[in-house]
């Protein structure tokens, strides 16, 4: 209907759209748009432009910006258009303004007045248009200008207005929570709105509020549950149905809210079990939207206090997702699995092969999701396999954003679960080598500290072995052409500190290597500085050991260069080196003691060693020192700067607006009195909220399961930031505990190794699954809860063999299911499941797009063609329609555009396509004809323009 009604536009506009539509390249499009800008600049400021024409100009401006060019010259005209009397013109004006301007634009001030006027309009559509603008354009400062009116509109008789008013208020809350903190009770009230649309919209602000402060909304659990129940029981109007599912988007929103409210709260969770269970039972699992709801149920179930029955249902859904052929469902399944294993880690095991398939899938999205899952299920028994996989993947990708993320995950896992120092060093080397410039510098410092401190205080040989292996590996790596700066810094430091310690490498060899580094990375001053200091250490250690050192020629020339360096830091280091080399062994040993990087340096902050000197000076008549706090009004140069710094913040001009008079204080009383009615309890103020938040973690840790990931093996983080370690809040200083951890660690690792060996030996190759995959599965999932049990009982062999039996069983069953599933070909996205009777009756489940989707699968093409033919037989009249019109050919050419020409089974497929076109072919033919009249011909240029989106 809209199409014929809407072609009022001028020929000029149609031509513009046509030329943009037919542009073959970005350059061509740019040329058209630049041309258009010139035209508009000329025309738009002409006097007395009729408003319909003006509306068109404004839409042309929208085009200009949408295609990436600046249209700011016309903004003011869009602003003016918001004053117009005609609703359509006004709304177009508002639309353009919201698209053009950000909320801090200077022109906004001109619109606020119009908005205020429009909010009072008698026409509810005008009010709606203004409210749309409010929620996009009003910033913190202008909120007070419209707030009273928006609040008034919350009680407007039209539900559309109430809905938009709620969302405007939501926007204010997002912008500046304090500006509406006295109004949050309105959200609670609107939850009980008679109109499901208003109620549904109200869930958005409530979700935000609850995210920030769960405890104030616990009383609403019952309401949310009962709303959800009513929705599930189809007590909302049919208009909200989507694909036979009652108000699915509202269901999802409610489940999200319940997940928040039930998290770590047994009582609240108990109230939700029934309704969530109902959804699990009733939900249609064959449609996308049904699966979307089921996924949300899983999220909810894994967030609230665990209920065995629901967890079982969730596990069932997950296994269905993972076994599905649709990548979308697999993705959701992997994500859901990642959520559920926090509560029941054992369910990962039955899906091991599916997970490995996802991991090896060429689809990057799926792969990443799977890595996320592996990250969540890492423990000391599988850390090696997982981190190795991650690193391989990290090396293979180019996307820096994700590279950084995965690198930091590798580091985190390595720090937390590393089975041995050697492995840790090697892992870090790989991470640094390939993503060194992306990881946090702290990681480098952690690594240096680990090498310096070692991990077992009693075990010096292990420490020195660790150091030697680090030195060796670094000397090896230095051969690589281009290394990240951060990594080079670590290498230089370690070589300087420990390069000659074990006597394996001569001083001159290390010195030569360091000089090479300084030379090869001569642009990097930090690396050079590290190298020079390392050189100094090597030289001094040699001197202190009583060996004579001759300065190598390359070192000599490096020093000469640095002595004249523009960097004062490098210069100073070079001069220091020169000076130190000249000293005798004793002095040198004092300046640069060997292996002393871990020694604490005592800093005498009071400078007490100067007391004698001060006494002497005072006796000579010097002014005594007056502490800063006792000085007043004295201009003290040395202090001046720091003081200045302080002052700037306190005494400078204040640019921020004066605080708004907050009605909180007054309004706090009325809600308080209302609180007894319990419909509108008082919103919490800031400080109690904070205290709630601090209590929340302790509650959740009581709840236990959510923390499981960290607890699994009682593994503490051995390296890295101490904040991460769950149980070592006191262990920072206690050495003995560290040692204990270290030992259990090593033990765990060796048993794990022996275990994987066992599984490898006793394994009999299964029918279809490649042994590699199984091996991977075993090493990834093998550990799990069983490792712990074994450790407890000590029946190593029997346990692990029974474990094997189980494992060999699992793949078989999953294979069976897979083979069962193959005959029904994968069900592609249900493009045509329109949920409207007319559609389903005229078009049997086939459409051109769907066919294209299935083209890769030849068997499906055949069946699709059959369908198409039967469709054709059923509706000969449509065929006739098509054969009469010239549009037929064009549509065909549209279907046959370049990227699709590689279809197998050519002609038959093509023939069936136009027949299966949309619900009402007459409509589209009329449209084609109309467009032709307007001078837009569906040329071969861009035939797709005419193609029905819904097929």
């Amino acid at each position, binding site marked *: 209907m809209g199409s014929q009604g809407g072609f009022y536009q001028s020929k000029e506009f149609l031509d513009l759209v046509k030329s943009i539509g037919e542009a073959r390249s970005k350059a061509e499009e740019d040329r058209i748009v630049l041309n258009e800008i010139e035209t508009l600049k000329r025309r738009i400021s002409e006097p007395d432009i009729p408003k319909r024409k003006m509306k068109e100009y404004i839409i042309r401006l929208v085009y200009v910006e949408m295609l990436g060019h600046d249209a700011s010259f016309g903004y003011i005209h869009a602003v003016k258009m918001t004053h117009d009397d005609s609703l359509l013109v006004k709304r177009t004006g508002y639309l353009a303004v919201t698209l053009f301007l950000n909320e801090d634009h200077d022109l906004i001030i001109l619109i606020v007045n119009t908005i205020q006027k429009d909010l009072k309009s008698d026409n509810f559509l005008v009010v709606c248009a203004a409210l749309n603008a409010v929620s996009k354009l009003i910033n913190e400062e202008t909120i007070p200008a419209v707030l009273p009116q928006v609040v008034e509109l919350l009680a407007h008789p039209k539900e559309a207005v109430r809905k938009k008013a709620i969302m405007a208020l939501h926007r204010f809350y997002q912008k500046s929570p304090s500006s509406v903190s006295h109004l949050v009770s309105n959200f609670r009230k609107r939850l009980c709105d008679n109109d499901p649309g208003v109620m549904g919209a109200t869930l958005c602000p409530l979700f935000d509020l609850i995210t920030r402060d769960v405890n104030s909304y616990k009383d609403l659990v019952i309401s949310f549950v009962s709303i959800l129940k009513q929705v599930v029981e189809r007590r909302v109007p049919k208009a909200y149905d989507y694909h036979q599912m009652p108000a699915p988007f509202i269901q999802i929103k409610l489940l999200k809210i319940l997940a928040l409210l039930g998290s770590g709260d047994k009582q609240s969770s108990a109230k939700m079990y029934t309704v969530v269970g109902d959804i699990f039972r009733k939900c249609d699992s064959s449609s996308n939207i049904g699966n979307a709801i089921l996924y949300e149920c899983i999220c909810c179930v894994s967030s609230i206090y665990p209920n065995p029955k629901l967890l079982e249902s969730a596990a069932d859904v997950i296994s269905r997702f993972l076994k599905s052929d649709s990548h979308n469902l697999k993705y959701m399944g992997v994500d859901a699995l990642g959520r559920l294993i926090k509560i029941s880690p054992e369910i990962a095991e039955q899906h091991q092969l599916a997970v490995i398939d996802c991991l090896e899938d060429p689809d990057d999205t799926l792969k990443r999701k799977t890595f996320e899952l592996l990250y969540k299920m890492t423990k000391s028994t599988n850390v090696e396999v997982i981190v190795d996989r991650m690193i391989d993947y990290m090396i293979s990708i180019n996307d820096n954003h994700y590279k950084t993320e995965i690198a930091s995950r590798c580091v985190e896992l390595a720090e937390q679960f590393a089975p041995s120092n050697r492995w840790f060093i090697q892992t870090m080397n790989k991470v640094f080598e390939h993503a060194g410039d992306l990881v946090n510098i702290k990681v480098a410092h952690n690594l240096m500290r680990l090498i310096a401190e070692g991990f077992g205080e009693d075990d010096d040989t292990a420490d020195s072995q660790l150091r030697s292996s680090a030195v060796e590996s670094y000397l090896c790596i230095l051969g690589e052409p281009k290394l990240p700066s951060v990594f080079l810094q670590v290498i230089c430091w370690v070589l300087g500190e420990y390069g000659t310690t074990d006597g394996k490498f001569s001083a001159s060899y290390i010195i030569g290597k360091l000089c090479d580094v300084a030379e090869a990375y001569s642009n990097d001053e930090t690396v050079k500085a590290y190298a020079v200091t390392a050189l100094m250490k090597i030289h001094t250690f040699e001197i202190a050991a009583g060996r004579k050192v001759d300065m190598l020629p390359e070192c000599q020339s490096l020093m000469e260069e640095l002595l004249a360096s523009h960097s004062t830091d490098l210069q100073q280091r070079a001069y220091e080196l020169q000076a130190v080399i000249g000293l005798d062994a004793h002095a040198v040993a004092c300046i640069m003691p060997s292996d002393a990087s871990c020694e604490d340096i005592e800093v005498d902050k009071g400078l007490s060693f100067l007391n004698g000197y001060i006494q002497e000076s005072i006796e000579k008549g010097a002014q005594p020192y007056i502490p800063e706090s006792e000085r007043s009004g004295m201009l003290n140069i040395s202090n001046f700067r720091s003081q200045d710094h302080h002052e700037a913040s306190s005494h400078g001009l204040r640019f921020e607006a004066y605080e708004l008079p907050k009605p909180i204080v007054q309004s706090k009383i009325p809600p308080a009195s209302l609180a007894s009615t319990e419909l509108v309890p008082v919103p919490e103020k800031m400080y109690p909220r904070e205290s709630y938040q601090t209590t929340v973690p302790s509650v959740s840790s009581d709840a236990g399961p959510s923390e499981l990931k960290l607890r699994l093996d009682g593994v503490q983080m051995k390296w890295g930031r101490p904040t991460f370690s769950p149980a070592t809040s006191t262990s920072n200083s206690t050495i003995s505990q560290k040692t204990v951890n270290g030992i259990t660690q090593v033990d765990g690792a060796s048993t794990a190794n022996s275990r994987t060996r066992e599984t490898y030996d006793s394994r009999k190759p299964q029918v279809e699954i490649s042994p590699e995959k199984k091996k991977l599965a075993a090493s990834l999932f093998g550990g799990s809860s069983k490792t712990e049990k074994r450790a407890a009982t000590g029946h190593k062999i029997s346990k692990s063999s029974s474990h094997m039996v189980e494992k060999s069983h699992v793949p078989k069953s999953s294979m069976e299911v897979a083979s069962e599933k193959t005959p029904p070909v994968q069900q592609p996205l249900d493009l045509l499941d329109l949920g409207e009777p007319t559609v389903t009756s005229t078009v049997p489940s086939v459409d051109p797009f769907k066919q294209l989707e299935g083209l890769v699968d030849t068997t499906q093409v055949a069946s699709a063609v059959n369908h198409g033919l039967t469709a054709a037989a059923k509706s000969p009249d449509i065929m006739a329609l098509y054969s009469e019109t010239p549009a037929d050919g064009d549509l065909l050419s549209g279907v046959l555009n370049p990227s699709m020409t590689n279809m197998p089974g050519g002609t038959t497929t093509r023939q069936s396509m136009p027949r299966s076109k949309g619900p009402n072919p007459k409509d589209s033919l009329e449209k084609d004809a109309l467009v032709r009249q307007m001078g837009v011909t569906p040329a071969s240029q861009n035939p797709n323009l005419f193609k029905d*989106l819904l097929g």
Partner: protein
Amino acid sequence: MGIRFILMVNKQGQTRLAQYYEWLTLEERRALEGEIVRKCLARTEQQCSFVEHRNYKIVYRRYASLFFLVGVDNDENELAILEFIHLLVETMDRHFGNVCELDIMFHLEKAHFMLEEMVMNGSVVETSKANILTPIQLMDKAS
């Protein structure tokens, strides 16, 4: 915040509609659209309809020559967004009758009006087709 932006882009990578729910400058939009479209166009039909890009997750769906791309936060239900796209297309189809790319081009403002009814502040607020289309039909009648 949920939905961060909604884009309609054709197979040649030309933008047909763009609505952002957070402010980006013209240059940022241009760059973002270019990167995302390149990523999505490179994917096959069998792969997931979701792509991670920087801090966004893109949920996309293709109808004939037109791609509908929705950028969402990380904790959004991807399948639901996928169905939201379909709901949008169905709604446009009901209004335009066999909606095609050209309808959206000629009636850019109407497509935007529909979105304004369906999404506010980055959240889906209305999913009843009747409620979405009534204001637009009333407006058509009035003018």
